[in-house]
């Protein structure tokens, strides 16, 4: 029953967008009816250029996410495990985290022009913090009693990380990756849109400059669908990775 209602909601929204321009509520030059958008979308999916753009976006997104997660986990564990280091770096993390990644746009454009590197820097910067914060919370969540027992059994620092810190931090890492994935996708497409590196974002920019309004809406719908797919995929991956884990994972307020 719920699914029916959900579909009704979507259709209702589609119908609203269909009628608004037809009935003259909004000029159809700026808000084409849903049917035109879907037709354009169908046409676009026929062209290879569209799939190339999707591939570019996915590649930049996943590469950026990968770098961010690798850096985030490495730095997170490095900073998190040693209490002194953790306290010393806490303020720096709190200082750098809220800096909006888009502030780097002029910088990267000047350094790397409108290439994938520029967008990658944005994506990595934004996604890195999501992972780092969760990992540091995960590492801090290690039960002190467990840590002391491990030490009494003579487990070296590396062994402790492998057998104690990592399993405890894993649920946080996975949450961090899920949050990072969403942010990474947003920054990937934003980078393509504003900087002009190849991908869906740039397709939207080109559609805009050539005044192809229905194409702009169609591509926006695609970014939305991509976002939904990303959310579904990361949540599924999270369930699979953590199925063995009693769901005591706490999503720390990012």
């Amino acid at each position, binding site marked *: 029953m719920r699914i029916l209602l959900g579909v009704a909601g979507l259709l209702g929204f589609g119908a609203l967008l269909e009628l608004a321009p037809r009935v003259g509520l909004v000029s159809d030059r700026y808000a084409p009816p849903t049917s035109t958008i879907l037709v354009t979308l169908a046409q676009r999916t026929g062209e290879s250029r569209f799939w190339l753009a999707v591939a570019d976006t996915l590649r930049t997104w996943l590469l950026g996410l990968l770098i961010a997660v690798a850096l985030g986990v490495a730095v997170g564990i490095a900073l998190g495990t040693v209490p002194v280091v953790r306290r010393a770096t806490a303020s720096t993390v709190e200082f750098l985290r809220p800096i909006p990644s888009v502030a780097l746009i002029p910088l990267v454009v000047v*350094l790397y*022009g409108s290439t994938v590197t520029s967008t990658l820097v944005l994506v990595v910067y934004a996604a*890195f913090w999501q992972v780092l914060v969760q990992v540091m919370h995960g590492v801090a969540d290690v039960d002190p009693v467990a840590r002391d027992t491990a030490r009494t059994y003579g487990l070296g620092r590396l062994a402790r990380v492998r057998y104690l810190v990592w399993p405890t931090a894993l649920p946080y890492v996975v949450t961090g990756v899920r949050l990072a994935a969403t942010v990474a996708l947003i920054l990937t497409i934003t980078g393509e849109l504003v900087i002009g590196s190849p991908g869906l974002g740039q397709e939207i920019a080109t559609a805009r400059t050539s005044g192809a309004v229905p194409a702009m809406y169609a591509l926006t719908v695609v970014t939305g669908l991509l976002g939904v797919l990303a959310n579904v995929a990361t949540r599924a991956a999270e369930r699979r990775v953590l199925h063995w884990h009693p769901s005591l994972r706490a999503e720390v307020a990012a």
Partner: protein
Amino acid sequence: MRRHLAAFLLAPTLLASAACGADGADEPAPGQPDKVTVGVIPILDVAPIYLGIEQGFFDERDIEITLEQAEGGAAIVPAVVSGQYQFGFSNMVSLLIASSEGLPVKVVSNGNNSTGVDGEDFAALMVKADSPIRTAADLEGKTVAANTLQNIVDTSVRQSVRKAGGDPTKVRFTALPFPDQPAALASGQVDAVFVVEPFQQAVLAEGGRAIASSYVDAAPNLTVAAYFTSQQLLADNPDLATRFTEAMAESLSYADSHPDEVRTIIASYTEIAPEVIEKLTLPTFPPEVNRESVATLADLALEDGLLSKAADVDALLP
């Protein structure tokens, strides 16, 4: 490169970018043509280089060109300086500002000039048909759209306002890409636009009317834009630079003498409808840069506060 060392120090993310590295032009093997990337803007003014490639003027001189499109001169200059592009196309004011700010840029060939005829130039300051604005002086307190700011467009428009007896400091500018300007003007979000072809036709098609030919007001036979490179490339590969200049000179005179071919080539790199291309007013493509016009531009830019100190025009021009 020292830049990556500096990047390395700055922040963890730039660490990531250092890993990706910037791609510079690789030295061509002997006998192989120079692989060269040129940054251009997808507007009318760059038709000659497209024609030059088509006519093989560059192949004859062992230059294999790929053209990359960008928003405006301000975006192309850093790309040329960083070596991402070897040559670039930019309006004169951006180049004047860049060189006065210490950027190692050098003009290697003229780009294009205004027609020099008031009211029949390839670019114009335009308003809506029913707009109360009659002359440029009426723009005081109004908003004018320009593709990027601090470039030749706002400098020339200010000169038109000055010439019409208005106070240019009271005119507000908004950065808006050329393709968005006709719609913004039609819907009244901006009071006036300065558009080059083919967007001039688009505004005319919607009943817009020109109130000034700012490029003509700025200076007679104004050199609007030019092709440039970095001092770095001039030092590393002077021969490539001279060959590029010769090829460009040939392309420019070819374009000047074959206006109809200019129109057909435009269709290849823009999404302009053929019937509109027929009605376009073409700029002129003299091979030589009009030095006085550039000097006037430099004075205007200084007066408008775009330059922090007087520009050394001779250091910039070939």
